[in-house]
């Protein structure tokens, strides 16, 4: 089986938001004014690294999920793969074409469902589909017919002639899916497709994606909902701070999750001192300090909580919150990054 998407050492660096890195660095220095030569130096530390050398392969016909918190680099990855963002370095190939050298050949093979519905508000629902198909060279009348069939399948046929402003958020999302499919793409990108959808609309969308997957389309979706990635995807790539931390099937990833329940203990100060004492609490297999939070893993679940509280008290700390997470992609994510997904 060949690869629909190949990403090698992909990197994207944005300039500092102000665009005046020299002055920004000077402004940050609270001490004496730096020498003039200092100001003229490009301040690379002010650059925003959205993607930091990402490698990825997605096979033909695969339903692949990019899982990570907001700002992890998921949308930047999708932006580069759909030719809407230029990478700083590295290479990416979609459907056999390089995204930088032949962007319009890439676009010919892809369908994109954006994070926020962005239909053409000057056109009706069906016109949105027919014109989008026409931009791909399909005859207009034929596109209108297949557009109506698609709307039927997605359950919004009654809105075909409505202005898009008359559609609800969920209906507009369906229209975006229809638009991404109207020109029969082989690779479909969905950027956080279920954000803002009510639970029913989300389940409906899952069904639609499963349908498309059965048809053999390659689907790449980003999400920060782990249960979504877990239930839908053949493979999941876990991304954080612009890097791919792990990439495997949901089952394999869950098997890698640290054993037992994760008990997160929030303290009123740094957790470092509590760490040493917590290691000796009976039933705790592993413990980490993350700022003011203590992460303990135990096969005995909540039973170790009194011991952890006692360890915190002995270190002079007060427990402000306790949270339990059963073994899951989320506990794997937390163990890899020290952060929660959301």
């Amino acid at each position, binding site marked *: 089986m*060949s*690869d*629909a998407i*190949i990403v*090698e050492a992909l990197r994207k660096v944005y300039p500092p938001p102000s665009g005046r890195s020299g002055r920004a660095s000077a402004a940050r220095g609270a001490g004496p004014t730096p020498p003039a030569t200092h100001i003229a130096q490009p301040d690379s530390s002010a650059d925003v690294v959205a993607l930091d050398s990402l490698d990825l392969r997605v096979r*033909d016909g695969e339903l692949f999920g990019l899982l990570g918190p907001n700002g992890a680099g998921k949308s930047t990855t999708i932006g580069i793969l*759909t030719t*809407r*963002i*230029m990478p700083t370095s590295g*290479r990416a*190939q979609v*459907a*056999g*074409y*390089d995204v*930088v*050298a*032949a962007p*319009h*050949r890439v*676009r*010919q*093979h*892809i369908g*994109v469902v*954006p994070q*926020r*519905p*962005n*239909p*053409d*508000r*000057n*056109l009706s629902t069906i*016109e*949105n589909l027919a*014109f*989008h198909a*026409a*931009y*791909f*060279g399909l005859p*207009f009348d034929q596109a209108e017919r297949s557009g109506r069939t698609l709307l039927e399948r997605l359950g919004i046929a009654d809105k075909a002639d409505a202005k898009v402003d008359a559609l609800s958020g969920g209906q507009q999302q369906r229209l975006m899916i229809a*638009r991404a499919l109207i020109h029969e793409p*082989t690779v479909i990108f969905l950027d956080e497709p279920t954000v803002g959808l009510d639970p029913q609309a989300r389940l409906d969308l899952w069904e639609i994606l499963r349908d498309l997957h059965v048809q053999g389309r390659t689907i790449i979706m980003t999400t920060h909902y782990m249960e979504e990635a877990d239930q839908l995807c053949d493979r999941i790539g876990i991304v954080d701070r612009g890097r791919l931390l792990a990439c495997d099937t949901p089952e394999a990833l869950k098997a890698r999750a640290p054993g037992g329940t994760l008990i997160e203990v929030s303290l009123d100060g740094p957790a470092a001192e509590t760490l040493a004492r917590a290691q000796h609490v009976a039933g705790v297999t592993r413990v980490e300090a993350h700022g003011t939070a203590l992460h303990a893993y135990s096969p005995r679940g909540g039973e170790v909580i009194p011991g952890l509280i006692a360890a915190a008290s002995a270190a002079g700390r007060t427990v402000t919150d306790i949270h339990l997470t059963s073994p899951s992609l989320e506990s794997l994510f937390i163990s890899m990054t020290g952060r929660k997904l959301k």
Partner: protein
Amino acid sequence: MPATSDAGPARPLAPSPVAERPPVSRFRVFGALLRRDVRVARRELPYFLIRTVMQPVLFLIVFGYLLPKMGFVQRGYTLALLPGILAVSLALSAVQSVALPMVQDFGFTREIEDRLLAPVPMSLIAIEKVVSGALQGVIAACVVLPIARVIMGPMPELELTNPLLVLAITLLGSTLFASLGLFIGTVISATQIGLMFSIIIAPMLMFGCAYYPWRGLDAVPAFKYGVLINPLVYVAEAMRGALTPSLPHMPLVASCAAMLVLTALFLALGLQSFRRRSLG
């Protein structure tokens, strides 16, 4: 515009996993983009007419009809006014029909994305916008000319002996302002749109030699040369050269050459800025 030339994948990382699809004809895509704009414009025809015709017609009523009736201005003034009014009509129409939708398209939701995903070079989408804006400029001029004739009465000095020249100047002027619209529309944000009219459009209309001939500024040399940075001057003067050649005007060759240079400049700037916004 080459029909279907295409760069293949550069140094492929792997053989193409999908059945090869022939490249899409750029002419077809261009046609579809134009068809979309025509459909939207047709739907908005009343607004389009009000937007483009209202301002010139009000000027015509006051300066081309009322003031001459009152005896405040001479007959010659209305003759100098007519080509200028046509220039204003086509300029306003062309610049607005590109800049306003462009601001919306690149706004919060980026509605233009459904076109940016078309399998053609992105510049084709910008060029289509300019073509569609230029056509709207020509239509505006064609609508205003007969209205002017009705309001201002018969004008024996008016020459329509060379309609092709008038049409060519209308088309060139419209393309110039549609290109300017592309640049403005991709540079400013939605919140600045009101400012665009106060800071760019209003001074351009007032100092564009539309309501007075450029040669009339001989009396104020600082203005005479200062207004030359204003693209509307060349459109208005070229219109005078074609419609009322017996009255003093800038040499037709000079005004047309300036229009060509400015069109190229604004188109280059507009395409560059469109690309920058598209790859945001």
